[in-house]
């Protein structure tokens, strides 16, 4: 079996449990993002895959080989660091060439001046330089190879770091928030470049980020982590439309999902603020209704709320309202032309689309729900 497989990884630093049993498999050539708030353990998990951190228990497999006990140097993975971690005293060419030097040349052959005199070293050095030149061309930094990192911009340094990762064709790529030090405009263009690079190189990639929009736009699959656990793994669409945990629903999406206190009555109908919203569920008792801002809209039979504030975004309009009965905050995304129809201080009736509404129990676990026919809803 190829790709990266993690079996029940646990990691503690002293008494602090950072990872509490993480299992995950990344298939060959897949781009998987680990996303979660800071401190959720995603960087620790990546360092464990890289071999920079030892597991407390569990196993790591890369390309079908158990590498749990292997050191980083022997795992055949490449990593791009948040601060790039370029060697400041080496030129771009030397920086990209380091992984090849360390692998293709013996310790004696690496000695400055003297090493170059040994038989065969000149030939090896030539192939290294050719590979480095290829990688640099691929990333569009061919003209910068004689500069030192201090003479490069943030974006260029980032490319050098990528070059150092791709130059030796590793089994897996690990990227630790590689875009967080770039300015906003560059971040968006670099996103698509990294995705394109991943397609060309074709190695399994694990990408750590706290930015859910990066995770959603770049990945084949997204793993949402919180408190040392993976809550859900799925395609970006799956994670967005079908979250299995309230924390996933709340973390993914901007502005974040609306949450309203709800009640399942003995007939299995879901009501919020005494308004039946046409949603049925099994069981009864208190629940939480989560609804994306684009799935709630003004309607005659909706929940009464007062408009507090609106944001015009060009392609849409965000209306911030407060539910009259409960005081809960609701954000609703409307087409921009509705701007003339809503005013601050007005009362509107907002109705969640029952087909898109998500129901969670008090512990944040997803509950099954179904759209009720009109008779069921009011009968």
């Amino acid at each position, binding site marked *: 079996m190829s790709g990266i497989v993690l079996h029940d990884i646990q990691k503690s630093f002293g008494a602090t449990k950072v990872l509490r049993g993480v299992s995950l498999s990344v298939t060959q050539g897949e781009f998987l993002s680990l996303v979660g708030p800071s401190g959720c353990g995603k960087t620790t998990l990546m360092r464990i895959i890289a071999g920079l951190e030892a597991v407390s228990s569990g196993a790591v497999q890369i390309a079908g080989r158990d590498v749990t006990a292997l*050191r*980083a140097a*022997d795992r055949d993975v490449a990593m791009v660091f948040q601060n790039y971690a370029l060697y*400041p005293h*080496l030129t771009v060419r030397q920086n990209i060439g380091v992984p090849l030097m*360390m692998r293709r040349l013996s310790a004696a052959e690496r000695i400055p001046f003297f090493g170059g005199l040994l038989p065969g070293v000149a030939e090896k050095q030539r192939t290294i330089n050719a590979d480095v030149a290829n990688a640099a061309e691929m990333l569009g930094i061919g003209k910068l190879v004689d500069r030192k990192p201090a003479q490069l911009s943030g974006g260029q340094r980032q490319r050098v770091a990528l070059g150092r990762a791709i130059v030796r064709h590793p089994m897996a790529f690990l990227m630790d928030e590689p875009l967080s030090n770039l300015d906003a405009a560059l971040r968006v263009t670099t996103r698509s470049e990294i995705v394109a690079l991943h397609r060309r190189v074709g190695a399994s990639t694990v990408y750590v980020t706290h930015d859910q929009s990066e995770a959603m736009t770049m990945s084949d699959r997204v793993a949402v982590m919180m408190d040392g656990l993976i809550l859900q793994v799925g395609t970006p669409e799956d994670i967005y439309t079908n979250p299995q945990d309230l924390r996933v629903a709340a973390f993914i999406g901007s502005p974040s999902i609306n949450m309203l206190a709800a009640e399942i009555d003995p007939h299995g109908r879901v009501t919020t603020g005494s308004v039946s919203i046409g949603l049925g569920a099994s069981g009864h008792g208190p629940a939480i209704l989560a609804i994306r801002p684009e799935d709630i809209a003004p309607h005659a039979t909706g929940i009464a709320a007062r408009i507090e504030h609106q944001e015009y975004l060009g392609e849409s309009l965000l209306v911030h309202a407060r539910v009259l009965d409960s005081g809960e905050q609701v954000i609703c995304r409307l087409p921009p032309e509705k701007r003339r129809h809503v005013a601050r201080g007005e009362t509107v009736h907002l109705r969640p689309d029952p087909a898109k509404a998500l129901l969670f129990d008090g512990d944040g676990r997803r509950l099954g729900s179904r759209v009720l026919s009109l008779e069921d809803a009011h009968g």
Partner: protein
Amino acid sequence: MATVAGWGPAFCRWKTPMADVAMQSPAVKAPTVHARTLRGDAGIAWLLTLPAILAYCAMILLPLLAVLALAFTDYEFGARSFHWIGFGNFADMLGDRTFSASIRNTVVYCLFVAPLSIGIALCLAVLIEAGARGRAFWRAVFFLPVVSLTVAMATAWQYLLHPSIGPVNALLRMVGAGTPNWLGSSDWVIVSLGFIGVWENVGFNLVLFLAGLTAIPRELYAASEIDGARSGWSKFWLVTWPMLGPTMLFVIIITMTRSIRVFDTVQTLTQGGPNNASEVLLRTIHQEGFHYFRFGYSAAITLVFLVIVLGLMLIQTRLIDRRVHYG
């Protein structure tokens, strides 16, 4: 700070910005105000620097100039007059056996102490940094010689190195090795003083290296590990050594100047003997000046000493500085 046109800067510089704003007339043109403000600020800057300038002149520049002048005279302490003798003192040095011995010994001492104390300190620093526990303990242990009084410690060394009752020779006798007279033989004395010098300097250099090591980003070690640096040795050459460059330059300069200035161990343990075998530059200056009261000659040697120190610093900063700072 804005000032009003027409008021002298000498007056204005004492006013608060609040007062300025209140008194500013609407007719004042911005460029004028700006020019005057700059002049006023510069005046204050000079005024505030004045105490430091005076102190520098009185304590460093004037004595230096006095030494410079004295070096070309035959002035002796207490003499009623002196004569300008041009380069006479320097010509005397060429034929002075004590002076040439002190130059030779100082060079040997430096070449012994600097590489050894830097090398040992670097090894210890890397070991202590890599160790999981007891960093503060080891740092304190090796730093102890730096904070202890050399003159007091010299007594301990005198005992340790004593030819007949000293523990060092007792140990050597046990293993059947020769028992040199460490401080009394002209073959060994500079080596013995050198060892004491290394012992004194290692702790100081160690602390500097430890500071340099903690400044190296951890990510670089992680990157080198991923890049295939398996051994500590290859990580040292790929990351530690180049990243310690600026620290290394500083340590080399400091150690060289510290060892050129060796005086207290020589004065307390050997008084330059036997037969000038441990005569060093600073002690010669001291002897000529305060023993024989030949201030002119002493000043001339001081000048030579200064030129050597400045020359070393210039070579080191010019040659090495460019290669250890990576922007």
